[in-house]
């Protein structure tokens, strides 16, 4: 493994800015690493060496001509296959988008590239981000770098595994119900789900629009802050992207946990966190306390209803968003359909996988005449109750802490036959999406050799506090330095 591989994004940027390494050398080292370990991990759907090296050389030429090094100069980044990258295909892990080359690029990707990051490829995911294990990809499962017989989590499992296996220091994912935080936890890396609206959704393929949010994976909170600095901010191409000012996130890293009030919803946690995972969580709270934080109990009485509300709201929105895959404007069309309705039905039947169909059916049912009030509308009201729970909690604390998941990574195939069990794996992550809050997952130790995560949630648009707490936790612990055996 080259000395350039395994470095943090901030270290790579420093070397490139000091002209101690060229962007091309950095890109080549990471492409070599990908070639070496990808067969064991299957994190990528596409690796794009020519595009990466071309961009790297152009940035090197600009730096040689005296240009200032941008904040992510030369940093290799992997992009979840749900975000459009100029010149590369997007499949969203689905056969129905096989061969699709988007005629535009995602704002999130363009911002990272404008900040000097070098895209090396697109990563595997559950089809249309619907899943918690990356097994619902139409193409292949991704393996957990800590144990190849286990899932990396999902739906952004490829991005999490790529960062964990040192193929890239930075990756982009998206989080609708935990799809950044849950795989980050199960692969032992850091993941940030920003406040809904913080990062433009332009060029992010829609699953559930009121919940979807793109965000970064890295190994350190410092690198997450670096990426967030490039990603955050209003985009005229996404009118729902927030106009709230973006704070100086680098400053957050210098703060300490002194005076930080951590709230823990014990009543909710005590029903179903595996013992060892709970032990790592308690140790994490102790680490935060030793760094100067105070920990107290908060009440979030409606959280037990979050999974039910989430799966009704998310699938209802999905059933509407995925109506566009009809074989007419892009993607695959069922051949030889002579009648329009058959063309829609046959194209969708052949192009969409079982989990996507299941969610479209559930969502269409929740929206259908006679059931709308009892399911979709009621779920939206429960969403209000959950948001109010958090508003009350944040009057008494600055961050809410939970384990990111109830257990470490499960085995490949363990839950594919039982969708409800798979949905329950998201129990601690979906509340943040329902309420629109920012959330962070950080490695907090191993359970039987497998990583688990500490989840921190903060008030809307208060990523600064979240990153400050996260940086303080990483100063007090060394879990993020552990590397998987690949």
């Amino acid at each position, binding site marked *: 493994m080259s000395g350039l591989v395994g470095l943090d994004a901030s270290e790579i940027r420093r070397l490139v800015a000091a002209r101690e390494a060229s962007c091309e050398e950095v890109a080549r080292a990471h492409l070599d690493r990908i070639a070496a370990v990808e067969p064991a991990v299957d994190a990528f759907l596409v690796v794009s060496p020519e595009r990466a090296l071309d961009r790297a050389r152009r940035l090197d030429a600009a730096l040689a001509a005296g240009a200032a090094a941008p904040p992510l100069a030369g940093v290799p980044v992997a992009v979840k296959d749900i975000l459009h990258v100029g010149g590369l295909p997007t499949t969203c892990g689905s056969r129905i988008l096989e061969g699709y080359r*988007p005629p535009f690029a995602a704002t999130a990707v363009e911002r990272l590239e404008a900040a000097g990051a070098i895209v090396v490829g697109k990563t595997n995911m559950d089809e249309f981000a619907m899943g918690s294990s990356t097994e619902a990809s139409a193409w292949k499962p991704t393996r957990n770098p800590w144990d190849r017989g286990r899932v990396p989590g999902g739906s952004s499992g490829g991005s999490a595994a790529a960062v964990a296996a040192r193929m890239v220091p930075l990756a982009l994912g998206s989080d609708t119900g935990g799809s950044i935080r849950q795989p980050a936890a199960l692969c032992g890396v850091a993941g940030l789900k920003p406040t809904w609206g913080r990062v433009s959704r332009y060029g992010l393929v829609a699953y559930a629009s009121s919940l979807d949010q793109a965000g970064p994976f890295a190994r350190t909170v410092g690198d997450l802050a670096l990426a967030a600095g490039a990603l955050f901010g209003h985009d005229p191409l996404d009118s729902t992207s927030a106009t709230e000012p973006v704070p100086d996130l680098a400053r957050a890293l210098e703060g300490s946990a002194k005076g930080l009030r951590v709230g823990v919803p014990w009543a909710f946690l005590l029903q179903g966190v595996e013992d060892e995972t709970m032990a790592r969580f308690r140790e994490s709270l102790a680490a935060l306390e030793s760094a100067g934080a105070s920990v107290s109990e908060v009440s979030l009485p409606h959280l037990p209803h979050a999974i039910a509300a989430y799966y009704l709201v998310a699938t209802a929105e999905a059933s509407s968003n995925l109506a566009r895959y009809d074989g007419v404007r892009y993607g*695959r069309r069922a051949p030889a359909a002579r009648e329009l309705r058959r063309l829609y039905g046959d194209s969708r039947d052949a192009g969409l996988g079982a989990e996507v*169909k299941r969610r479209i059916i*559930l969502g269409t049912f929740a929206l259908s005449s006679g059931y709308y009030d009892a399911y979709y509308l009621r779920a*939206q009201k429960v969403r209000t109750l959950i948001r109010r729970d958090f508003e009350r909690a944040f009057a008494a604390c600055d961050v809410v802490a939970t384990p990111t998941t109830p257990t470490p990574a499960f085995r490949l195939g363990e839950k594919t036959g039982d969708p409800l069990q798979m949905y329950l794996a998201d129990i601690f992550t979906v509340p943040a999406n329902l309420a629109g809050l920012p959330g962070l997952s950080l490695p907090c130790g191993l359970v039987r050799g497998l990583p688990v995560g500490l989840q921190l949630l903060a008030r809307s648009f208060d990523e600064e506090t979240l990153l400050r707490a996260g940086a303080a936790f990483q100063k007090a612990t060394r879990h993020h330095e552990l590397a998987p055996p690949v």
Partner: protein
Amino acid sequence: MPRVTAATVEHVARLARLSLTEEERETFARQLEEILAWAESLQALDVSDVPPMSHPRDGGALRDDEPREGLLRERVLEQAPEAANGLFRVPRVIGG
């Protein structure tokens, strides 16, 4: 709780423009019933005075309605399974 049968799934699938095989209809009916039974806990909550939340924004997201450049037609049509004369091509829907 409503009983979810293969016929319910068939009706919903038609609304969603999915055909589904007989086996899929039966599997989905069973799984849907299981998921809805689990979601039954929502029915016990008193939400009579609670407004629904459609998204996390407090205000609207309106912008001025000003014309601007869109995507290039040729680039968009390049992605179509079938296109002709600057249009998407589909099977005939009117007349015979």
